[in-house]
């Protein structure tokens, strides 16, 4: 019985957590919601740090908590990795001892991570002899991340683990997290405010609103749903399952195939035949009625308009169907009129290849 199934109730003055859901027991599930919506509270409940509330929690078949039966596995027996929103490093321990804290307490047989390896990924090798007070904000956050990873967790809870990190640093860390859940099969609950980061890393998305799970589902499905609040985001866009079909070494391009056609992207080091999810921002898709002439836009896909939604300020979100694959395009009201777009209109969707994020 794989899956993270929970139902928590927690009362606080002016706020009520009432979250109930069954999230996948593998992959990265993003928790997305406004400030104060209850994301941290939910993670704390799952970690067993909030004993007060009523709750039930089953993680991949193991029951961790059931208030009705009086069952409560304490946090230290849950084999978690929790990256707190504030780094929460132990002030009396040097960075090395902080990193090794959970590691030392893991039974030898379960130890998987490797200190040096994690230090390399996080770029913290030079800081091992420091105390937490002697670190910058981003450095602290990376140590906290490393500490949780070295705890050899069976479930990773991450509360905005990269909010203080710059983009290149994030780009270095994210592939590691992805590998972690694919190779080591550790489910990750990941809180973030950044749709970009989320789209890049998550497989599954749960929207949190006012202490409830508003809606949840596979990332591609959630992103293609133009009725959800995330579709209003600047970074809204569709996620597409593709397969690597070849490389063009001269131009450093990779050919990707999906149901609706072919897409060219900047070269990616993946073997031919491998599956690959890519994301196309709604703002990067433009529509035309005729096949466009010569331009720097490499990718043109034939599609049909299936749904349109006014988003205010003259913007319209258009949902397209490209051979069974949903695509989103954000266009202006004016464009819609000029092109005479309606449900069922066949269009050419132009996609700038470099805007595809992996």
């Amino acid at each position, binding site marked *: 019985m794989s899956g993270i199934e929970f139902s928590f109730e927690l009362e606080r003055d002016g706020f009520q957590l009432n979250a109930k859901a069954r999230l996948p027991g593998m992959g990265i599930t993003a928790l997305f919601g406004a400030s104060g919506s209850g994301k941290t509270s939910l993670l704390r409940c799952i970690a067993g*740090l909030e004993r007060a509330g009523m709750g039930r929690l089953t993680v991949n078949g193991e029951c961790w908590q059931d208030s009705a039966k009086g069952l409560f596995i*304490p946090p*230290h*027996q849950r084999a978690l990795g929790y990256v707190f929103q504030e780094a*929460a490093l132990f002030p*009396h321990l040097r960075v090395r001892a902080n990193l090794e*804290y959970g590691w030392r307490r893991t039974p030898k047989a379960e130890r998987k991570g490797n200190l040096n390896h994690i230090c390399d990924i996080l770029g913290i090798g030079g800081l091992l002899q420091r*105390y937490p007070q002697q670190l910058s904000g981003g450095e602290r956050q990376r140590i906290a991340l490393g500490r*949780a990873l070295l705890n050899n967790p069976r479930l990773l809870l991450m509360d905005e683990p990269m909010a203080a990190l710059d983009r290149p640093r994030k780009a270095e860390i994210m592939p590691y997290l992805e590998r972690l859940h694919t190779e080591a099969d550790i489910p990750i609950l990941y809180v973030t405010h950044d749709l970009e980061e989320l789209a890049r890393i998550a497989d599954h998305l749960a929207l949190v609103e006012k202490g409830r799970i508003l809606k949840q589902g596979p990332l591609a499905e959630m992103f293609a749903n133009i009725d959800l609040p995330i579709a209003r985001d600047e970074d809204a866009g569709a996620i597409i399952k593709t397969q690597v079909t070849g490389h063009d070494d001269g131009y450093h391009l990779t050919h990707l195939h999906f149901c609706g056609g072919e897409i060219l992207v900047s070269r990616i080091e993946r073997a031919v035949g491998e599956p690959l999810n890519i994301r196309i921002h709604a703002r990067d898709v433009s529509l035309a009625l005729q096949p466009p002439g010569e331009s720097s836009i490499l990718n043109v896909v034939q599609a049909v308009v299936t749904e349109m939604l006014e988003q205010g300020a003259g913007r319209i979100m258009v949902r397209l169907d490209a051979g069974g694959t949903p695509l989103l395009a954000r266009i202006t009201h004016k464009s819609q009129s000029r092109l005479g777009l309606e449900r069922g209109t066949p269009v050419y969707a132009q996609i700038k290849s470099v805007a595809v994020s992996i």
Partner: protein
Amino acid sequence: MESADISALWVTLRLALTTSLILLLLGTPLAWWLVQTRSRLKTAVEALVALPLVLPPTVLGFYLLIALAPDGIIGGMTTHGLAFSFTGLVIGSALYSLPFVVQPLQNAFCSINPLNLEAASTLRASPLDRFFSIVLPLSRPGFITAATLGFAHTVGEFGVVLMIGGNIPGETQVLSIAIYDHVEALEYAQAHWLSGGLLLFSFIILFLVYRQNNRWSHP
């Protein structure tokens, strides 16, 4: 220095060390309980701990004497009673110095950010493990204060010891009484020497302890 004074010095050191050790052992869980508990008894226990302080030591000693006598509540549990024994002295000193140990510890425990404990609990540390790996090191200044106050107070303690000790050389005659006797007997020179020595010795000990503590806190 008379041989009696030297043996008094030893008894004093043994007493102070034993007492502060026992106080730390007892006071630590008590203080931790006081910080953690939501029991209604908490406040009453806090007040009780501080209570022995308000009685004059000789009076406290008098009541202890009654309790420790062979037919007293505590002494009755032993064959010969505990009055006039080293064990009795330790009990008396410990009772009297308890608040000096419990209160600094309680404050130290209280000022630990709970996030540290939560983080440790997600890192596989059991409550006991958390206590030793997080709480103890983070409350080091509190322990230093507790230990020095407890130790110093026992060295200087006098009234209780006088009352339940019986001034038996080598067993219950402590330095404070020896100095006192010299003063009473108008042997001022000896009193000055002993006091001066005690002060110097204590100063050096305290100085070393505090210096180490200060070094630790500026990494």
